[in-house]
């Protein structure tokens, strides 16, 4: 933004929460806005954010009105509803698959999907409009936001999906601020920071605490007290995917040293740490290095044992491990004092059997012997090697990683052929990738827990399916901007030049460049067999796995 525009915006009554600060603060505020913000103008019915999207920015309404709606049908948001093929539709793939690579029926595309997108300022790009607006109004009652209101900050700061769809009700001018700007604003403007934290405590924190085994038994009053005492901390870079490739070139010790420390081995334990977003590595000293004990993902916690021992009066209690952030991580720290006051009496009353690491009810199938901390400490270097590698390479992010046991794989490529057969003749992965010992993680979409590919998709074409939660791309609304492909740290999204019925490349009418579409593994979401690759492997060498389960089981 230009200096003049920043000044104009700050003078607007809509930004009074920011512009009532002291002049020294205003000067710094101007700098933040200049770097991290832009003004977006929307025509009526233009979509600002979609429910379920991942975004890294928040919006202030400067003028006009925007509507907030929940539960819109996927089609009206530019997504497709996946229907499983029936037996005959599945069989018909035998003769209906195209011999032409990446052939598309271009008659079904709208004009946006057949135009090369400009890389310029998004203010000039055509916004995506909410489809069938009268029906939306008939069925849903939008909540209206006016000048001065803001939205999207929790999802942007928390790296969580947008919880609602927001569209322009009238001509609207919005100030979009990237997460870096939001973070700086929170540091600078105390009132605003307080407001955001209060909103989070009110809306989401109690639910998060309630879902955590060590707090799930608390009554509402104690839960609220714990929520009030909880501190928010963030570590690492939000855009960690940008530095991921540099990280791979470093040796493991160097990379380990660069990870931001959340808690240090030998320090005094000051409460329970819960991971809200991202991943953290738990290590302990071994020889002159650090051995990875386990990693924590969203919903996991650490420190209950130490805190319990401390509160029970045991002397010289120290942190047994160090915890460091992997990429970007958000931590909720529940102080020991709050636990002593609100949680300890109930733990004692119930003779609570604390587990320092408990992955929650969904993962109870793990053999019992691996569910106590001592077992993790006792694992041999060889047993921990796959975990070290998975954490180092950030494969722990995957929920459906394609893991191939190369001692079993006969390189027959039946998996690749099966993938092609179920995707109109086009395989959606490469049977090649990083290897460790006899394991290979192939270049197939891992359907990440933290799907950075979904941040910034301008049309919402890349999204999570409602059923199953796999990350898929709607080919009809993909405009080939490559945002997802560039964001994927694992290079698992490929841009394909599409062809028409005649086998010729489809070209942009204006600049004659080929039209691109993002392609990737969709986990065969529309197939009755599930992932065809795993189903077609005769040797059980290829599996789609949550890396967490593989390395801990």
């Amino acid at each position, binding site marked *: 933004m230009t200096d003049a525009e920043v000044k104009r915006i700050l003078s607007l009554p809509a930004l009074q929460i920011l512009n009532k600060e002291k002049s020294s603060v205003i000067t710094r505020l101007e700098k933040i806005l200049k770097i991290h913000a832009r003004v977006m103008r929307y025509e009526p019915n233009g979509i600002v954010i979609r429910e379920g999207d991942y975004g890294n920015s928040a919006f202030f309404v400067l003028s006009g009105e925007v509507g907030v709606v929940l539960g819109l049908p996927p089609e009206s948001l530019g997504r497709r509803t996946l229907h499983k093929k029936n037996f005959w539709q599945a*069989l018909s793939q035998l003769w209906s698959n195209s011999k032409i690579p990446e052939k598309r029926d271009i008659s079904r595309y709208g004009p946006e999907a057949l135009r090369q997108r400009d890389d310029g300022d998004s203010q000039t790009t055509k916004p995506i409009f909410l489809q069938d607006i009268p029906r939306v109004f008939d069925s849903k009652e939008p909540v209206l936001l006016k000048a001065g209101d803001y939205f999207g900050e929790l999802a942007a700061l928390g790296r969580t999906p947008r919880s609602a769809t927001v569209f322009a009700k009238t001509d609207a001018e919005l100030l979009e601020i990237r997460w870096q700007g939001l973070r700086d604003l929170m540091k600078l403007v105390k009132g605003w920071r307080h407001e955001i934290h209060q909103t989070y405590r009110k809306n989401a924190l109690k639910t998060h605490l309630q879902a955590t085994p060590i707090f799930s038994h608390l009554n509402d009053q104690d839960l609220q007290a714990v929520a009030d005492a909880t501190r928010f901390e963030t570590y690492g870079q939000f855009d960690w995917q940008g530095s991921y490739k540099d990280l791979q070139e470093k040796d493991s010790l160097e990379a380990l040293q660069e990870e931001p420390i959340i808690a240090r081995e030998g320090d005094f334990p000051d409460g329970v740490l819960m991971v809200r977003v991202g991943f953290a590595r738990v290590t302990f000293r071994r020889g002159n290095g650090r051995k990875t004990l386990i990693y924590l993902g969203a919903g996991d916690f650490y420190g209950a044992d130490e805190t319990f021992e401390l509160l029970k009066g045991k002397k010289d209690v120290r942190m047994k491990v160090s915890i460091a952030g992997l990429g970007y991580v958000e931590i909720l720290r529940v102080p020991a004092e709050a636990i002593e006051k609100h949680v300890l009496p109930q733990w004692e009353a119930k003779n609570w059997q604390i587990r320092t690491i408990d992955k929650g009810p969904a993962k109870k199938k793990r053999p019992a012997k691996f569910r106590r901390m001592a077992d993790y400490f006792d694992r041999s270097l060889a047993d921990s090697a796959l975990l070290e590698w998975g954490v180092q390479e950030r494969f722990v992010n995957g929920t459906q990683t394609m893991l191939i046991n190369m001692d079993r794989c006969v390189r027959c490529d039946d998996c690749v052929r099966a993938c092609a057969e179920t995707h109109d003749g086009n395989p959606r992965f490469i049977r090649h990738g990083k290897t460790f010992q006899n394991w290979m993680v192939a270049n197939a979409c891992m359907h990440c827990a933290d799907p950075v590919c979904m941040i910034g998709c301008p049309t919402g074409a890349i999204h999570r399916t409602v059923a199953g939660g796999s990350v898929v791309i709607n080919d009809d609304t993909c405009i080939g901007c490559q945002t997802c492909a560039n964001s994927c740290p694992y290079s698992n999204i490929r841009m394909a030049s599409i062809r028409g019925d005649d086998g010729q490349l489809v070209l942009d009418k204006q600049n004659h460049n080929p039209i691109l579409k993002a392609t990737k593994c969709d986990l065969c979401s529309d197939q009755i067999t599930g992932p065809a690759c795993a189903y*077609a492997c005769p*040797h059980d060498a290829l599996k789609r796995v949550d890396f967490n389960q593989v390395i801990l089981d």
Partner: protein
Amino acid sequence: MTRLWGFGIAAGAFFFLILVWTLKVDQSLGPSNFISGWAVFGVLVALVLFNGRKRLPFLPLASASWWFYFHITGGFLVVFLFWLHTDIIWPNSLYNQALVFMFYSVSITGIIGLFIEKTYPKSLTQSGVEYIYERIPERIAEIRAEAESLIEECTEKTGSDTLAKHYLEQNSLYWFFIRPRFFFNHIFRGRAAKHWIKNQCSLLDRYLNDEELAYSKKIFDLANTKRIMDFHYSMQRVLKGWLLVHVPLSTGLMVLALWHFVVVQVYL
């Protein structure tokens, strides 16, 4: 492993059932060969369906690994059923000899294939690198180009053509770098290629000065990389290629077996 045990027990039970049945029919002087013949033909048809299943990955016809275990246990089962059916190792008539020859060929190639599939992947993994089979020729060409540019650079910088001449000598480095070598030795996991490279290196060393030796070392490092690539090429070629023997033989066997089946049904 549990699945394999399950199939094994089922196959054993099936064989026992057919055996008892044929013995009973034998005792009553009935045509017991019909029973074992039907069993052999039925199992053969079921075994052939595995190939059809591979072409229909989008249908819920049980996983390929289920079919694989079925194919293995069914393959061993049919050998025993075949012996039960024929009673002899080698028949007299030409047609039957052809049929038996095809049956044994299919069985032997299947067992060899199974051995290959269970042992080769581990050897490939132990080589420490992974190459995509289709890209190996391209990678070999790149390595050759790199080796040749090193030799040119050596000649230009040292003014000596010893390395270049050796490269071009008959059955020397050019021969090695031009395409995959030591195919048979690699598939039997021999060490001839490693020995050959070491030998070439020691042959040359005494004629090179320190500067040339540095280039020679780089070239032999490339030769070792190419040796591992050759190993992958040979092993993967066998892994992919054995089916090109097994499947056509199976087709031939099915044609002969079908004709035998028709003839028996019509004339006996």
